[in-house]
């Protein structure tokens, strides 16, 4: 049954390929959507099968084939394993089955959104096949059995996102944004490649000594099973030669930083927010792809666990990012930008929870926040279309004009503000402060992370409620060119997508409710459901974490929600333009220094290439001038006597003969070390 996971990964790509033979763009879109829908169906079947067989997270089913095998020389096996190889295939565990089902569903919704929003667009067909390839790449990453496949799949995701970001390539603003996104993501891929390189350098020989998994003649490098053992060994002093705490820290940085970049965490969120000029379905696909960052963090969790302070640093980074991104959402007026930053901000809470030792809560937050974030994007698209603007200051009165879309926005706001229990999950992990393999954050770090998280939990309902009030309450803001009477509810197809996304968000929240462990029975009593709670299903290691309901976390989250909503209510009475004056915007004393550094960096970046290019022209090019011109002069002299073609040939031949003769003379004169007999 688990071999069917191959179908999940490959079906969208097959759909993309088949779409090229479709006669019309519409048919091509249908073929692509059929591929993703088929993938969703099979993903649900695999999920159901696994769900029914009481399999723990620690016992994955792997179907893989060898991707490459290099046999280094026997003298090099101190660096590499005797068989330097890796596998590619599908890794079926509870995490991958849950997330493949989610991703296929969300990408199907994105494609559904595109059928409405890109109708008549010249890049209609292109969007569908690229998004299908992107779906295959994201699924291939989630179901990757090895770190090597993760790197490979993320590279494909980068390519797919670049192609999607260039959807409106004819606009001047598209190119630079897409280029920046590509450079950031490609840079992250290169960092990950460096992580792979360091992994095999430090742990390759160790992995080679491990027992090969079933179906393999030798232990494949980068296989997560091999890596888990190798990371543990590396953390035990004296077990692996040449490794220590420094190695583990470097590995953590090289593997976690690309994950955080993929998840668009602060301070590298700009690659995502910079894409806000792209069509909405492109933004939807980009948002779904953010999940790859969190899944990568989950896959390297074993390494983070055995590296002292790594998880604490991750928790701090996530908490700081959560506050920063929430503040950016509050300061933004572009509804698309808010939606993108909000998606990244929700994942920041996931990162925080993962760092605090909450493996299941962290993944649950990612699982829940993906449909919730997509819900805002879908609703934002409808609103922006109707109001012909993306500036929330110019909106208002959507409740009377677009009731269903307003409900969708309200649902998003309610969920994002705290009802999706994302805040509770993050806080409970922080307060519990217990890593799966033992250990915990230092008290000071815990306090700092908790304070930052609470701050983020106040800011999130603040901007969510402000957005709802700005868009839905009151009356449309009068502006030139805007005709209030034309504002109408979104078309049925968009409403359908909104409803499906909202339903998915609600289901995801229900799955995450803590404390539900209803062991029921299906069919004729032969199939058991182990539990509805996400943390009972996806957990680290062989035994699930004991995650008791934490009233304090619940209380703090509720208070933060109330404070945020109250703040939004208060701010809603202040006109937009006055808000900036009233808010205490701190003036950084370091601003001049930052500006100076920025100026000098820009100046250096501008002048260095010019200087190098000039040096290339003036210093290096003349190296060849003297001999080259000598040949030219010879050819020109000969040309006075003969035809042009012969002249060129003779010049070349003569030069060869002269050189060889010169060396012969040198050799004959004993100036070259030639022996004679």
């Amino acid at each position, binding site marked *: 049954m688990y071999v069917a996971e191959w179908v999940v990964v490959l079906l969208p790509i097959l759909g993309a390929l088949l779409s090229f033979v479709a006669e019309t763009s519409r048919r091509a879109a249908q073929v692509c959507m059929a591929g993703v829908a088929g993938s969703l169906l099979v993903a649900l079947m695999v999920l159901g099968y696994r769900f029914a067989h009481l399999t723990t997270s620690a016992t994955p089913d792997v179907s893989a084939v060898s991707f490459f095998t290099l046999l280094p020389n026997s003298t090099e096996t101190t660096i590499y394993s005797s068989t330097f190889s890796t596998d590619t295939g599908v890794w079926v565990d509870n995490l991958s089955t849950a997330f493949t089902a989610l991703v296929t569903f969300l990408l199907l919704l994105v494609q559904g959104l595109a059928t409405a929003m890109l109708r008549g667009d010249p890049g209609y067909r292109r969007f569908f096949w690229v998004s299908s390839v992107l779906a295959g790449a994201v699924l291939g990453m989630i179901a990757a059995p090895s770190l090597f496949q993760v790197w490979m799949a993320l590279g494909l995701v980068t390519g797919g996102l670049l192609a999607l970001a260039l959807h409106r390539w004819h*606009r001047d603003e598209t190119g630079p944004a897409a280029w920046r996104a*590509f450079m950031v993501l490609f840079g992250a891929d*290169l960092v990950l490649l460096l992580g792979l*390189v360091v992994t095999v350098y430090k742990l390759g020989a160790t992995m080679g000594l491990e027992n090969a998994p079933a179906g393999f003649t030798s232990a494949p490098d980068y296989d997560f099973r091999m890596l888990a053992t190798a990371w543990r060994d590396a953390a035990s002093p004296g077990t692996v030669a040449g490794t220590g705490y420094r190695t583990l820290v470097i590995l953590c940085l090289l593997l976690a930083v690309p994950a955080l970049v993929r998840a668009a965490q602060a301070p590298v969120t700009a690659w995502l927010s910079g894409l806000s000029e792209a069509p909405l379905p492109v933004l939807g696909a980009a948002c779904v792809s953010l999940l790859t960052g969190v899944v990568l963090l989950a896959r390297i969790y074993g390494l983070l666990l055995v590296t002292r302070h790594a998880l604490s640093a991750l928790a701090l980074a996530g908490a700081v990012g959560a506050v920063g991104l929430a503040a950016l959402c509050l300061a933004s007026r572009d509804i698309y930008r808010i939606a993108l930053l909000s998606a990244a901000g929700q994942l920041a809470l996931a990162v925080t929870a993962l760092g605090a030792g909450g493996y299941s809560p962290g993944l649950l937050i990612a699982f829940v926040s993906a449909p919730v974030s997509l819900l805002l994007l879908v609703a934002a698209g409808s609103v922006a279309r109707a109001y012909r603007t993306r500036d929330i200051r110019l909106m208002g009165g959507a409740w009377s004009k677009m009731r269903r879309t307003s409900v969708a926005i309200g649902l998003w706001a309610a969920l994002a503000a705290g009802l999706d229990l994302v805040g509770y999950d993050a806080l409970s992990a922080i307060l519990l402060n217990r890593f799966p393999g033992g250990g915990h954050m230092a008290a000071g770090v815990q306090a700092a992370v908790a304070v930052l998280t609470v701050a983020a939990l106040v800011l999130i309902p603040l901007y969510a409620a402000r957005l709802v009030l700005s868009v839905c309450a009151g009356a449309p803001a009068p502006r030139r060119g805007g005709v209030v009477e034309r504002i109408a509810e979104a078309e049925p197809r968009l409403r359908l997508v909104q409803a499906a996304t909202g339903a998915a968000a609600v289901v995801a929240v229900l799955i995450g409710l803590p404390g539900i462990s209803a062991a029921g029975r299906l069919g004729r009593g032969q199939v058991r459901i182990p539990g509805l709670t996400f943390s009972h299903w996806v957990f680290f290691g062989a035994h699930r974490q004991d995650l008791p309901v934490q009233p304090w976390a619940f209380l703090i989250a509720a208070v933060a929600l109330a404070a945020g909503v109250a703040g939004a209510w208060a701010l809603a009475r202040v006109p937009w333009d006055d808000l900036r004056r009233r808010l205490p915007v701190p003036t950084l004393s370091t601003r001049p220094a930052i500006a100076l550094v920025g100026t000098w960096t820009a100046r250096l970046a501008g002048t260095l290439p010019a200087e*190098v290019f000039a040096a290339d022209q003036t210093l*290096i090019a003349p190296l060849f001038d003297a001999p080259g011109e000598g*040949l030219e002069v010879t050819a020109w002299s000969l040309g006075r006597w003969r035809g042009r073609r012969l002249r*060129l040939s003779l010049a*070349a031949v003569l030069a060869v003969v002269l050189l060889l003769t010169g060396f012969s003379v040198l050799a004959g004169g004993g100036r070259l070390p030639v*022996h004679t007999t």
Partner: protein
Amino acid sequence: VNLLAQTSPGTATATVNFPTVVFTLMVWSALFFALVVLAMPDRTAEHRARIKALGASGTGAALFFALWALQTQAANASAQLGGGTPGGELVEDHGWLTSFPFSVSYHLDADGLGLALALLGGVVFFCAALAAWRNDRRVKLLTVCLLVLETAYMGVICSYDWLLFLLFWTLPVAPVYLMVRAFGHGHAARAAGRYAAGTLISGAIVTMAATLIDVQGGGRSFGTGTPPITLPGADNAVAFWLLVGAFLLAMAVVPLHAALLDLEEDSTGSLAAVFGALLPSLGAYGLLHMALGLFPAEASRFTLLFAALAVVTVLWSGIAALRADDLRRMVGHAGTALMGLVLLAVAGNTTVALAGAMYVLIARGLAVAVLMLLTSGIQERTRRVRVSQLGGLAWQAPHLAAFWGLGVLTAVGAPLLAGFFGLFSLFSGAFPTHRWATVVVLFGVLLVAGVLMRAAMRIFMGGERESFSRVRDLGPLELTYLAILGAVSLFVGIDPDHLAALFMNGAGYLLFQGSYTQ
């Protein structure tokens, strides 16, 4: 052949051993077609069409035998029958000059590195011959020169005798010089002169090294197939550095890259593709096969120098490419930067790094060929070659834009394209020896990616321009040869394991001759 040797069952059979001639055919088939072309008239369009067809057939024949050799050796390598190391079932070794104090043999063979370059060369020459189809000026000269150049290229990578090697090494001077002078533009004369001078100097240095090796080695054999070599006293180092100098000159790494850049800038598209993709690869072959292969001990002593050179080449060329406005020059700088990766592999001095270098050489060659051919297409259509003068071309030429993207992604090692496994393997192999250099070079790749991608944005993206409204997209012929290059890139990227054993054997042979065991 075997069917011909069989007799009817029941009768006594005499074993008939036919000589293996795959390498001979790979090397000389192009020259045979060149000779035929020389004898043909080229007065009418029909005559010229026949000549072009013969040119394509000649390059196609060489490609066919290159693929034959590659597949045979790859299968042997996978079955652990020694494919990828010299001396396999396809070796050709016959006495040639034996009446002198030294002996010279007609010794053709190829290791993994040679076969990788044979694949690259066969494909690029074939595509260049197709790309030259639309040329109607001096067709015979172009075709003959191209075929002679292919013979020289294949000869260099199959020669296992110094005299044979020197013959083929200096042979490209004439055809390249003639082609650049006859079909070049701008400062074609200067470019041709610079290249010829560089190659002749390189040839002279290799001659000196070969003489030194032969005389001081005491073997009295000009064969190159008995490495590693140990010469008395300082001769070892002298011979090694002579070879390194000669081949670095041919590789066109910084600061020796000016001649190649001129050649690429002032040639027509198909020729620039051949020059940019293949001529530096010959230098890389020489460096790996001769300098590193014959003197592994010397090479391992100076890895730091190669690492430094790799860093300088990648960064210098990458930064210079940032500023280059001329499209050909920009692609040329990017190609030079990628050649720095091969230097890093030499510095890495491991089989994994060298195997990676072979993949990288293929990817670099394919990428440069694609980008040079497209540059020519852009220049032909817009009469412009400066990036700052271009923009919005994807409106009229979407396929051209797509293939440019493919070329860029191949160059920077995007997944499932030729470069991706090469980069992985090369960096994995080089990191244990030179960590910081590997890190810097790795981010040099990011620089190259940024340059090429930014150029793509500026050339193809943006609003439609009136001046380019009559630009046409790629035609069927252009799509054909670009698709061939793209298909090879895809094949190598999707199934790198097909060539892995072959390349690893080749790399093992270079570093551990004699003691190499799988």
